[in-house]
């Protein structure tokens, strides 16, 4: 099955700093999403980005499908950005969405 690797596993930032999170995947995918899991456990969808570049406020993401990686950029970080960021992919074989999650990047933003 598809392998998903995220780096770094842990990240500590001062408020206002920028960061880049990386997701490598081992096979072609038709679904790639970035999620933020808040301290209460809810997975919040950030981007649906199987290819290309998207931006939403201070967040942006780029997926280079041919090279099998995706990047999530966080600019001017805030304490509310703390939590775990997951990359998840699906190959879509069989006509269903089986999201394979990476182990996550645990982000702590300090004031």
């Amino acid at each position: 099955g598809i392998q998903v690797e995220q780096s770094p596993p842990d990240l500590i930032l001062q408020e206002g700093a920028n960061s880049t999170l990386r997701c490598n995947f081992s096979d072609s995918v038709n679904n790639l999403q970035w999620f933020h899991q808040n301290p209460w456990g809810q997975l919040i969808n950030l981007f649906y980005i199987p290819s290309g570049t998207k931006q939403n406020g201070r967040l942006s993401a780029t997926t280079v499908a041919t090279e099998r990686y995706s990047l999530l950029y966080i600019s001017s970080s805030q304490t509310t950005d703390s939590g775990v960021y997951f990359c998840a992919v699906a190959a879509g074989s069989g006509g269903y969405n089986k999201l394979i999650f990476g182990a996550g990047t645990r982000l702590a933003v300090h004031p």
Partner: protein
Amino acid sequence: DAGVTQSPTHLIKTRGQQVTLRCSPISGHKSVSWYQQVLGQGPQFIFQYYEKEERGRGNFPDRFSARQFPNYSSELNVNALLLGDSALYLCASSLGSSGNTIYFGEGSWLTVV
């Protein structure tokens, strides 16, 4: 519009008991999936249902079962609970069966004692 809703939010069960978790997808979404997240790990796929039919199943024992109703809501049942079943159970919905944005509910925290 309401997002994906799950119930109950927290529950405690004893080993050997059975549990039923419920999920209502976003209005208009026909696909519901279930995931298990053990503390410190990423979610693991359990089932996907689309148009009331099982479309995919993850590597979970037969103690886990699910169904989808005509209104597209879903139930996840776990029989003969084990301590290792303690986890956050997440329901997700999407418009179609594949290649769509997937939205998650707030989850049901299950503790087995």
